[in-house]
């Protein structure tokens, strides 16, 4: 065993030393054992791993959870509070039934992993850890396997119709040393439609996996605001498989957080499907944000779109690794990838690795990665009309992220997040 492999194994041994696989029924135990075996063959990520070149994995690997102070939100209401929604609340990874809505809603079945763990058979068996496994090739994602093996909370959601309200998952962080695993499985039956909202920092260290199967002709919208606790850490995996003519759209807003690694792996397995994934990340100071996206086109005439914007200053780091893989036979693929950063001073860092790998000959794929500063001419134009410098900068920052925000199809949610962003910009100036 090479020294590098040994270090990855040692890191895993340390992490697992005080952990035991949770008890459960046949289906989950099988999935957990398989995940643990996967994990042991991978080890935990090391700094020499190509996939972790831009992001130091040590605090995500560490057996001891790094502390993260709980932010006092004052009188600020949680994101999405004003929407008619089916609300599910988790505090440091623990479900709060007293704060959550009744889980019954027409066209959807919602169960908690904790409640169905002891059963021997469950529909989620076909997806739990299965989409995660598919995402392990070609690049290992050890934290996701760790999650599949050890998560005891999460939602198992089966959507059979067009549901009237969004499912809103609110993660609250109250404990400075909470280490939380959460594993959601969502299946949209053919033709079904659903929106899932997520908000909040969840824990001091949060490891989340969301596996989503979007059946033929189904439509899924995912909108996430990762909370603005400054010290929290998160590693998340979004693993998606899409059928013919399906739609998947995901948007993530991240402001603050010491370390965030958002991975996504989306497979387009049926023709005429569309996948959009976008994000806006804003940070200053001790902030490291990583978007790592892999889109696999396996069927004809599918479209995929990645739009990522980052606004960084005072030592903040943003990274992007995005890949579009077009398999042989995925003709008439339309793949688009854009990753841009706005650096507000000389101390911020943006690292990007855009990749295209194409085996079909009739495709249109493009990628663009840029980094730049505030445009002085635009700034002067605004100021010359009487807009003060700070407001003008904020307007230009909002303008810069607008293309990513536009990926939120529903105007109500988009306005909600734009409003949060404006408040964040104003607060940042006062802090």
């Amino acid at each position: 065993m090479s020294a590098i492999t040994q270090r990855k194994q040692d890191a895993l041994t340390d992490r697992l030393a005080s952990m035991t696989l949770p008890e459960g029924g046949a289906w989950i135990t099988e999935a957990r054992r398989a995940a643990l075996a996967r994990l042991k063959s991978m080890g935990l990520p090391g700094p020499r791993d190509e996939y972790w070149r831009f992001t130091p994995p040590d605090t995500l690997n560490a057996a001891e959870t790094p502390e993260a102070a709980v932010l006092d939100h004052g009188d600020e209401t949680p994101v999405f509070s004003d929407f008619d929604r089916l609300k599910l609340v988790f505090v440091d990874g623990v479900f709060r039934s007293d704060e959550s809505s009744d889980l019954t809603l027409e066209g959807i079945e919602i169960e908690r992993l904790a409640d169905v763990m002891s059963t021997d058979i469950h529909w989620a068996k076909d997806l739990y850890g299965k989409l995660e496994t598919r995402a392990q090739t070609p690049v290992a994602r050890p934290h996701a396997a760790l999650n599949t093996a050890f998560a005891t909370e999460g939602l198992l959601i089966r959507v059979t119709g067009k549901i009237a309200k969004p499912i809103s998952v609110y993660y609250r962080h109250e404990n400075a040393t909470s280490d939380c695993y959460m594993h959601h499985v969502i299946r949209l039956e053919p033709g079904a439609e659903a929106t899932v909202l997520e908000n909040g920092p969840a824990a001091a260290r949060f490891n989340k996996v969301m596996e989503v199967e979007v059946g033929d002709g189904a439509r899924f919208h995912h909108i996430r605001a990762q909370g603005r606790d400054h010290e929290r850490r998160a590693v998340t995996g979004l693993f998606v498989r899409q059928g013919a003519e399906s739609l998947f759209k995901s948007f993530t807003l991240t402001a603050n957080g010491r370390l965030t690694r958002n991975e996504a792996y989306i497979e387009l397995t049926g023709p005429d499907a569309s996948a959009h994934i976008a994000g806006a990340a804003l940070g200053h100071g001790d902030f490291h944000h990583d978007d790592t996206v892999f889109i696999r086109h396996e069927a004809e005439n599918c479209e995929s779109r990645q739009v990522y914007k980052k606004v960084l200053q005072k030592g903040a780091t943003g990274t992007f690794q995005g890949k579009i893989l077009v398999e042989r036979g995925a003709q008439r693929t339309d793949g688009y990838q854009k990753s841009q950063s706005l650096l507000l001073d000389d101390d911020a860092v943006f690292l990007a690795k855009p990749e295209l790998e194409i085996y079909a000959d009739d495709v249109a794929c493009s990628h663009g990665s840029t980094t730049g500063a505030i445009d002085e001419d635009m700034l002067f134009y605004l100021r010359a009309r009487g807009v003060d410098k700070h407001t003008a900068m904020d307007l230009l920052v909002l303008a810069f992220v607008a293309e990513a925000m536009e990926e939120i199809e529903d105007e109500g949610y988009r306005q909600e997040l734009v409003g949060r962003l404006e408040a964040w910009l104003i607060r940042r100036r006062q802090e």
Partner: protein
Amino acid sequence: MLEIKDLHVKLEEEDKAILKGVNLEVPAGKVHAIMGPNGSGKSTLSYVLSGKGGYVVTGGEAALDGEDLLALEPEERAAAGLFLAFQYPVEIPGVGNMTFMRTAVNAQRKARGQDELSATDFLKEIRAKAKELQIDAEMLKRPVNVGFSGGEKKRNEILQMAMLEPKMCILDETDSGLDVDAMKLVSEGVNALRDAGRAFLVITHYQRLLDHIQPDVVHIMSDGRIVKSGGPDLALDVEKNGYADLLVESA
């Protein structure tokens, strides 16, 4: 209204003097024009007055109603009543024209201690003014100047001027890139704003704009100085004989 005394300006990046002692006084209610060949410093004068970066004032003064302009930030100059209609209006993708104008109008009102305009009042006012300039609702919704034609950009400048109601308006080659009809429209917009309490400084290469916006005084600028001033006839002279004769004469 606007008083410029012996203004000297050089470029920040290199040791190159652009303005070499400009003296100019534009009283309230008057329209002054500055003409001059390329590179004479006309646009620089407009930028320095409005506070654009990249220039260093090495001497002289500029005041608006007695207030030292050069000591103010660009937004403070705007709030004090100075307006520059840009030669090349800047495109700002992602910022809606309407949002931009409302932010600007309310920022200036706030700076002057006035109440902000309500959304309804603002909408009413901008719609009426836009209509006069033949700016349709679609243009107001689009991002600032993005995808606007040359003429639309200039009309958008005049719309901003009409909304902000400045005391001192500087028009930097507002005629460039305009066809005859657009020039007429823009000029009518400007003329509608002429009144006893407002002054204009119209910078142009060509006399034809001055057929539409008739100046009280015409100045000729060359090599960083105003070398000749006179009545509207001076512009006709330039049109007929070019700058060369005038400059020789004044040298």
